[in-house]
């Protein structure tokens, strides 16, 4: 998902007998759906895993602005430009909410940003794919934010209070994202034959990368058990992926587009759509840094960070100077 393949800092789920009294009390709270708050006792592994997961989620929100930002100046109408601008601005906010949640665990935002830039933290594989034309922007809102919503709705129930609250706030803003995307792709799919062709290509190209957002198949997902016991993962990768497919197939059919996978078929017995697995070797390769846009994305992120440094420093220096002047005036007046 926005946090895929988060390595759980633990060697498997402990039995109650192996837990210290503190840890047993902590787990009992989680089992009773009582939120863990920043200053509560928590196992070091829980804290470290959460920093990784929330940090990766935050980075995804921020890096995710790049493929869409690419189209702000080229949106087909002024209204679409304003909508896309608002959507991308929301994503910056999502990054902030999540960085703030991670900061309550004792890591600073700048530290996380620097870890991302040093390649020590990741962001979602989906943002390493290009947005080649306007139909892609519609498909991103509809499919990518659609997939994100499925994950984030589940995470509203996560055990860590600040993370849960960030998810609730984010979910309130997400349906605008999905709906503006679907409305853009509807225009294309119901437009000229050329527009419809672009919409079809966008769906074809983004379908499997969107499926990959939920992370590897459960049988290859080594980190799930502990994360589920801690309730920082609520549903398995395959459950979430199935939910996404079931929700999205009728939406593709409504557009009059062809399904992007010939194996998509309703399975009466399961009550779900069958579908093909994405090419997992491609997924692991993109995660390793070899996707079509990994290099560009990091270049843009690092560039923005470095080019903005003088502004950050300048504003801080100005604030200190102003404060010093205020303090001096106060002393003089006393």
């Amino acid at each position, binding site marked *: 998902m926005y946090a895929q393949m988060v390595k759980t800092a633990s060697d498997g789920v402990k039995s109650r007998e192996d837990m210290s009294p503190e840890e047993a009390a902590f787990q009992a709270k989680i089992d009773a759906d009582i939120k863990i708050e920043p200053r509560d*006792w928590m196992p070091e592994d829980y804290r470290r895993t959460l920093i990784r997961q929330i940090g990766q989620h935050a980075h995804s929100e921020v890096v995710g602005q790049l493929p869409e930002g690419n189209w702000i100046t080229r949106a087909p109408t002024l209204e679409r430009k304003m909508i896309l601008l608002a959507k991308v601005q929301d994503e910056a906010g999502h990054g902030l909410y999540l960085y*703030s949640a991670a900061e309550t665990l004792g*890591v600073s935002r700048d530290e996380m940003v620097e870890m991302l830039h040093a390649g020590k933290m990741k962001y979602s594989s989906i943002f390493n794919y290009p947005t080649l034309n306007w139909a892609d922007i519609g498909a991103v809102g509809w499919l990518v934010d659609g997939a994100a919503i499925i994950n984030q709705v589940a995470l509203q129930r996560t055990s860590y209070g600040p993370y849960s609250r*960030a998810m609730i706030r984010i979910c309130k803003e997400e349906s605008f994202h999905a709906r503006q995307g679907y409305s853009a792709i509807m225009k294309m799919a119901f437009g000229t034959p050329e527009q419809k062709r672009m919409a079809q290509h966008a769906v074809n190209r983004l379908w499997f990368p969107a499926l990959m957002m939920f992370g590897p198949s459960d049988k290859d997902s080594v980190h799930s058990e502990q994360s589920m016991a801690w309730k920082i993962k609520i549903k398995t990768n395959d459950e979430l992926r199935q939910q996404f497919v079931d929700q999205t197939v009728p939406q593709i059919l409504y557009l009059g587009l062809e399904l992007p996978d010939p194996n998509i078929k309703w399975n009466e017995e399961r009550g779900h759509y069958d579908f093909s697995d994405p090419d997992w070797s491609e997924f692991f390769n993109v995660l390793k840094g070899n996707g079509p846009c990994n290099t560009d994305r990091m270049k843009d992120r690092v560039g923005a960070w470095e080019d903005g440094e003088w502004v950050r420093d300048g*504003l801080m220096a100005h*604030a200190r100077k102003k404060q010093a002047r205020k303090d001096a005036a106060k002393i003089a007046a006393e």
Partner: protein
Amino acid sequence: MSNETTPSRSEWPLWEVFIRGQHGMSHRHVGSLHAPDAEMAIKNARDVYTRRNEGVSIWVVEAKHIAATAPGEKGPFFEPSESKVYRHPTFFDIPDEVGHM
């Protein structure tokens, strides 16, 4: 609310943001942000936390100035109110004949 983190070099300080909505009774904590000073913190809070008319008033306070109860004291600290059921109106049985009270 966020814990105080060690400020690295020129990292902007952390602010907690409180917002009162149109029909809200009081300011509520909505989240945190980084800003060089109070004025910028308020502007950033507007941009991040009131994009959909969530507020008509914003308070910001630097996170390091917030004092809070300790999580470990939760039981004993709030205990005094637990044994005082008579503070609630439903403690008293008033006959129906008396009418609304």
